């Protein structure tokens, strides 16, 4: 588990301090724009602003002038990113005069506006349809928020299938649930009320409190119990069998 130490007293930029929009282009790569409403307290006017757009191993970095004089770069095309998943952004406000390269303020995993549809807002899990090559589904965690269950977009009505088809539900959901719990337990996120906490609370509601010890065996057994209870509650194996029998008939 990685612990981070903030030696330099850098400030966390709140999501409300900037609004990122992406515009799709008919021809060519999408273009992004940023509206800043930075709280300039503790931010020197001459500090430089950088916006980094990223997804997986791809990255594009753009300089937006300084805190005192924001200047949008002319070219804001996201033409070097892996856009098979939505782009995420980070902002870095950097001291380039006194302590060169020191981070004064930053924020990670910022999502562009309009990337949270209403249906998904209240759910713990976002379901999306994405190109996944030969993989039928996978869970994405580097999303800037909730985990995303991605179903291969080559599957017709991929999202509808997951919502309505017992075969999809019974074969995908237990495995996805297990992955999510494993991820949040082994990548400890201490943000109060954060996504990890909500998922653990959801699981504890089913089988009782998560073991306090960091013993992998105890934790794995607990996750097994959760997935077992979840499958039992929604009768996933029965649902699958009924659907298979229907198909045969």
């Amino acid at each position, binding site marked *: 588990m990685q612990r*981070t130490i903030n*030696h330099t007293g850098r400030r966390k930029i709140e999501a409300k301090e900037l609004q990122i929009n992406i515009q799709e282009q008919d021809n060519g790569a999408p273009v992004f724009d940023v509206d800043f409403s930075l709280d300039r307290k503790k931010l020197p006017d001459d500090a430089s602003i950088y916006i980094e757009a990223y997804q997986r*191993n791809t990255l594009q970095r753009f300089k937006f002038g300084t805190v005192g004089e924001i200047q949008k770069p002319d070219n804001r095309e996201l033409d*070097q990113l892996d856009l098979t998943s939505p782009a995420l952004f980070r902002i870095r406000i*950097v001291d380039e005069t006194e302590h*060169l*390269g*020191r*981070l004064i303020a930053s924020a990670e995993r910022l999502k562009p506006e309009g990337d949270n549809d209403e249906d998904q807002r209240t759910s713990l899990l976002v379901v999306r349809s994405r190109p996944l090559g030969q993989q039928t589904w996978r869970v994405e965690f580097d999303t800037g928020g909730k985990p995303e269950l991605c179903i291969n977009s080559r599957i017709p009505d991929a999202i509808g299938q997951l919502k309505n088809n017992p075969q999809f539900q019974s074969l995908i959901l237990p495995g996805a649930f297990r992955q999510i719990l494993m991820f949040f337990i082994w990548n400890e996120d201490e943000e109060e009320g954060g996504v990890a906490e909500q998922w653990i609370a959801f699981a504890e509601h089913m089988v009782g409190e998560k073991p306090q010890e960091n013993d992998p065996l105890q934790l794995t057994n607990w996750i097994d119990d959760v997935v077992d209870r979840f499958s039992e509650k929604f009768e996933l194996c029965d649902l699958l069998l009924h659907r298979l029998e229907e198909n045969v008939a």
Partner: protein
Amino acid sequence: MKIRKLNKLGIKEFEQFIENLRNGGKQNTPDYLLTEPSTSEVLEFDIELEKGLFANRYELGTYLTEKLNDVDIQKFIGDSGFWSALALYWFDQLCPLKADGSRKPSMVYNYILSENYNHRPRHAIFTTWQLVELYGEHSRYLLSRELPVRGELIEQLMSRQYFLSCTGVMQAASALYYDSERKTFKKGAAGRSSAGCVYRFVNWLQQIEINYDLFSLSSDDLISLMPKEFERFKTV
């Protein structure tokens, strides 16, 4: 030879050839894929290449950057047909014949530029060209091994590709780990646990990136921030 790019069929046949070798098959390199109109197509620019004989990946990268110097290469950055054609052209050096006539290629994405961005940096030619193009001499320590070998250092740095984009980081690593006499990386650099090795360098970068913007730091800035464990590489 005037290089053409592979089309879909050419890429597919090249992939089948690699898979066949990986499964123990023996087969001549299908150079004809590079000239047949059914498996390749002309490029927007003329580029004449020679097979040459490169002692290491750095030599190959230098040769290629010179050849591509006047080409608007940006639009070919993700072009699998182009980079895969180059890997096919130099395949006999990337994957030489063994004494028993067999060959053991590594994963397909080392030769065919993958659509999967996680695998792209593993392409033998694309990454070699890119590192030399971006960092010139400062990429020597990463590319000093013979063509079939990607090398331990690049493997360790690729685990955090963000660092490969930071000029200061790459120059600092070169200053620390390149041994100009041996013309390769310094002894001990490729270790896993020894003080100051590349693995420790990557760990240290992960710590300081919490408080510093690595893109903004020069090589000298980074070296002045380094803890004592890196001294042995600074002075050798």
